[in-house]
């Protein structure tokens, strides 16, 4: 079976490749989203640390909203 | 488990049971309307409105499929084993379309014998197999039928 034939998948290449493409693209997007969120969170933790470092004894118990 | 936790769990579970009963009843009630379509008999009788988008369902009559040579246009008959109506269609048919298969056609009635379809749907029968195996199955089915016929003839011969 040649490459051309493999890509064409009879007359169904369009449907098969779109299905597989969208599936793995959307899962990849989830990972990208998580990586971006992680960056934000680490900044949050760092800024909190900086804020609370000099006066460690008086840590406020306010909620940090998401 | 502590008493207050148990109480909470029971509350959640009983609320869930009540709700699911309600939803089940509701779905049971609407289930009957969900798949409304006309059988060929009702169409021929004139129960189905003309020039309004409707759905008809039935089996594709063996040998009735006529395809145009230079376009996708196709004509075929469907039946509910009592009456027959003709469906015309000018787009490509689904892969599962077969003679003898049950299909559903959506479109407008031209008269009480012909439907001009805008959509033809075919249902899958939950079986998945390679073509060679399907061929073998068909063949062995045919052979089996022949054999049964022969055995029947032999039996007849005995009497």
């Amino acid at each position, binding site marked *: 079976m040649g490459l051309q034939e493999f890509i064409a998948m009879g007359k169904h290449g369009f449907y098969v490749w779109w299905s597989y493409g969208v599936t793995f693209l959307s*899962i990849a997007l989830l990972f990208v989203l*998580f990586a971006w969120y992680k960056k934000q969170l680490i900044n949050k933790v760092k800024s909190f640390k900086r804020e609370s470092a000099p006066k460690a004894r008086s840590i406020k118990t306010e909620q940090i909203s998401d | 488990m502590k008493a207050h936790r148990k109480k909470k769990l029971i509350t959640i579970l009983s609320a869930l049971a009540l709700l699911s009963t309600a939803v089940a009843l509701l779905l049971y009630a609407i289930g009957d309307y969900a798949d409304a379509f006309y059988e060929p008999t009702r169409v021929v009788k004139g129960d189905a409105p003309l020039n309004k988008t409707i759905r008809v369902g039935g089996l594709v009559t063996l040998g009735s499929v006529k395809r145009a040579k230079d376009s996708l246009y196709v004509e075929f008959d469907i039946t509910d084993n009592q009456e027959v109506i003709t469906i015309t269609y000018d787009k490509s048919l689904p892969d599962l379309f077969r003679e003898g298969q049950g299909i559903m056609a959506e479109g407008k009635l031209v008269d009480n014998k012909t439907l001009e379809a805008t959509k033809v749907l075919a249902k899958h029968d939950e079986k*998945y*197999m390679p073509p060679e195996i399907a061929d073998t199955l068909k063949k062995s089915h045919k052979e089996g039928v022949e054999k049964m016929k022969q055995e029947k003839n032999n039996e007849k011969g005995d009497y």
Partner: protein
Amino acid sequence: MANSSKSFWRWFHQLGSPKWFYQKSAKWLPWLWAITAILFVFGLYFSLYASPVDYQQGNSVRIMYIHVPAAVLSMVGYLAMAVCAVIGLVWKMKMSFMAMRAIAPIGAVFTFICLFTGSMWGIPTWGTWWEWDARMTSELVLLFLYLGFIALHSSFSDRNKADRSAAILAIVGAINVPIIYGSVKWWNTLHQAYSVTKKGAIDPQMQTPLFIMIGAFYLLFVILVIVRLRLEVINRETKSKWLQEELA
């Protein structure tokens, strides 16, 4: 028996500790990735190339190898979310609400994949990309439940309130899962009836790649949940000393 149930409860409590989970899961992830990658290499080789075409559907049968696993996980994911919601409400375990929240976006994406691949299969095979039959409608409802959960949770600024209200939605919505599963049996749907659990409906040459792909999707789902749950731990333990040391 007493011993094993004791160790189960110990494990249950450890899993309830964000610190324990955060440290342990970092060690699990490489292994999970390795197994998942192997499964996908085999699974994709078979599903895209080495498995036979179907006698009626031709090559579009290959869509089944991602559609069915996505469908399975969209439902299993929602059930897992509902179980976490119950544990969170009843036992007030910290981690369970975090896990519940971590599952939601992942489940939503798998539901979307299920719907999309189903449409892509439906066009050539049925002759339509969508039909308001019970199976497809209830799967669409599942997507809305996931999205509703995410929206509801993010609409509260108080995290406790957000967790509790979203948990109730997760539990109530779980009714939809058995409806999705039973729909093809209870109603006359365009969608075919059970084939995965029905013996002999799927030829072994197609069943093997399907099972490999279901395994691969399961593990991928678990990896995604762990990754997202680790983020949720960071999000909620910002003030903990151990976390600041972890991230330093």
